Each structure stands twice: as C-alpha cells, then as structure tokens.
C-alpha cells in the first residue's frame, strides 16, 4: 500500500515496507542524501530530521509512522540557495570536516536555537549529546552555534 508523506513541503509517495526506517526512504527513494546512515541505533544523530518540527533520528522511525507528518530534512534549511544563518556560521567557523555528522548537527541545533536563542555553551553541548562527530570537531561546531546565541 503506498505511503503518502510530506517531505520538505512536497507530497511524496513511498512504496516501501511500512517498517522501513525513514532514513532509507529519504535517501534511496527520494534521493535526499543529507541525512546520513551511520549507527542505525539512534546514538550518533547523523540521520536527524524534523518530524512535525521535532528533531528525531530517522533510522529508528518506521516510515509507516511518518504518514500524515510534516518531514523536513537538512535540504530544507537553505532558501533559494541561500544558507541558513547556522549553515553560514558553520562555514564561517570552518566547522565542517568529513561531512557525516554536520547535517544532523544542523537539524538538532537549528531546532534547539529556535527554542533557546540565548543558549550558553554548556546548554549547546547538552543539546548535542545525541550527535557524534567522528572527526572530534565539536569545539568549532559549538563555537558556530554559540556565535549565534551570543549575538542574539
């Protein structure tokens, strides 16, 4: 049975098994490859997307539970090719290294800074406990997020 989804404000249809992890549908059927597949256990956060505005790990969300939800991936952050303020901050702080973790970091931090625009460094670090960077580039990522929080 086809599964009707809304991804980045576009209607999409998946024909995969309803227990298929959402990340596999996003990448393999819709070719939205920003969300990365790494641990498949919900620990690394590389597959983080928003479902109804909440950051979730798409490796553990069956696509059948995402029907009727609004899904946003990292591809939705820029507008008409212009980077979001956090993406720009990542670029300015040279935060991106191998590229595996930062889409998930962006989704987690964008949502977090929307809720906590004046967050401290410690609060930013606490928000990132579910996002693992294998290059250990945390400090520059935190610097980038904190530059927005402290400028707010």
């Amino acid at each position, binding site marked *: 049975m086809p599964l009707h989804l809304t991804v980045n404000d576009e209607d999409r249809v998946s024909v995969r098994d*309803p*227990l298929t992890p959402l990340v596999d549908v996003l990448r393999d059927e819709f070719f939205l490859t920003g969300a990365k597949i790494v641990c498949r256990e*919900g620990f690394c956060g590389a597959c983080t997307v928003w479902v109804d505005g*909440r*950051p*979730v*790990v798409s*490796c553990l969300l069956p696509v059948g*539970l995402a029907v009727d939800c609004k899904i946003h991936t990292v591809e939705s952050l820029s507008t008409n090719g212009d980077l979001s303020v956090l993406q720009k901050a990542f670029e300015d702080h040279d935060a991106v290294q191998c590229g595996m973790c930062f889409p998930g970091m962006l989704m987690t931090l964008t949502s977090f800074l929307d809720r906590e625009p004046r967050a401290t460094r410690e609060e930013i670090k606490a928000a990132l*406990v579910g996002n693992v960077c294998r290059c250990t580039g945390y400090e520059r990522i935190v610097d980038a997020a904190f530059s927005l929080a402290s400028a707010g």
Partner: protein
Amino acid sequence: MNSLHVATSVADAIAALADRGDGGAPLAGATWIMRAPIRKEQHPRSYVALAKIDELQRVELLHDYLSIGACVTHARLAAALAPLPEFRALAVAAGSSANPAIRQMATIGGNLCAAGFAAADLVPALICLDAQIELAMPGESTRVSVEAFLTMRTDLPHGCLVRRVMVPRTTYRSDHVRLTLRKGGDYPVVIVSLAAELGSTGVVKSARVAIGSVETTARRWEKFERLLIGHPLDPADVTEKATLCADELHGREGVEAPGWYRIKVLPSLVGRAVRNIRGQC
C-alpha cells in the same frame, strides 16, 4: 513485507491485536523495536501502531494521581513534570534518558514493555513512586503494580495493551540518579530511584528504593529500604547500608560494564540520591 495497522482508538488497537494473536504486537515509539534486527530478533508478522491514538497521548494531573497515557514520550513527560516537584524522580528520569532525539520518540509504554532493555530509566522511577499500570484488553481493563507488570509483560494475553500509567500523589521526596560511562547521551550502567517520606525531625517514616540496569530487570530493593526506616537520611550512613545489602544482588554482565562493577558503584549512587533529596528539604 510486514504489515502495520495504525490504530485510531484503544478499542481499535485491542481488536486488531486480538485478531492477530501471536502474529501481532503493539508498536509505540518504535525506538526499541526498530533495533530488533541488530539484536538478531525477528519482527512479528504484524504491528499495531498506537501513536495516533489521542487518549494515549494525554498527561493529566488529577486529585489523587497523575495519569500518563502509554504513548507519552519522555520529552513530553519531562516538560509536563517540570513544574511538579512531587514527581521529581520521574521528571529526572524522563529528562535524562538516552539523548534528546530519542526522548522525542521513546514512550513510557515502550519503556515498560521492552523486556530486554535493562537500562530503561522510567521503570525504576515508576517503581519508587509506587505507580500502577492500567491494562486494556477485550471487554475489560485491570490495574497492576509496575513490579507485577514486569513479571507478566512477556506473556500478556492477546489484545492486551498498556493504556496508561497512574502515579499516586504523595508527600514523598524523590530523586533519580544514573551513572553513564559518557557524560551524556548514553545508557546508564546503574540507576537508583529513591523516594522517602520524612517526619518532622527528618527521620525516614517510609521509603521506596528501586534499582535499574544492575540486574536484568529493574527491581525494588526492600531489604535496603527497611534499614532506612527510623533513621535520618545521612549520605554516609545510607551508602554503608547499601554496601551491606548489595550482596543479595546479581550484577548483569554487559559489554559496557561487568556485573561486579555495577554492584560496586551502586552504594555511591544511593548516597548521591540521598544528598539530592536532602537538598530538596
């Protein structure tokens, strides 16, 4: 292909589960079930999703108890309990489990039903707060204690599901302490949930202590509780008493920590929980 029935009401879910018999199982936040292949476990032929049932999403503070629908997520529970210090152990458990993204997905019902998940944070917190579980099944509903539920959860009758959790309102002070190997975003190797009713002189009138992740299933620690009654909550004293009582425990072996380690650090965590409770006074 697996089938997924998205139930729209508790009655619909009960009927669907009863109809599927051994081939069906309920699905809440899915964070445990989606990792079944990693654990080399087979999915059943069919799941009945509970996430779209409004009734299971409610948190209601009633006169005598707090009612928590089975599909309330850890994040929603933590937010709901933030202004309610009487449920502090549960608030801490819900707000510190796993990591923020998992807390947006994992549910209280799922935490209770995941029999293979020894490190579930909400379970010992609910035991120490003396919570009851309401089970819904064809034609009836029944209430059981969390401890009783843990003994029957792998053998529930067809069509039975956790409808809500009921936490009594009391004057107990409580706290929830967990030891993780990383500072955050990790499952705990030891959990202590402690609730105590203190008299006017600070002496313990009654207490409930639960431990999680130490053994394969969370449990109440009654032998230790008895030693607390009639004494002030002194961190050094309770740490010593916990050490004396720890010989009855069977530490769970795991890749993250050996069984002896869990038992060795447990008394320190008990002392930490007591310090936190004293800080609430």
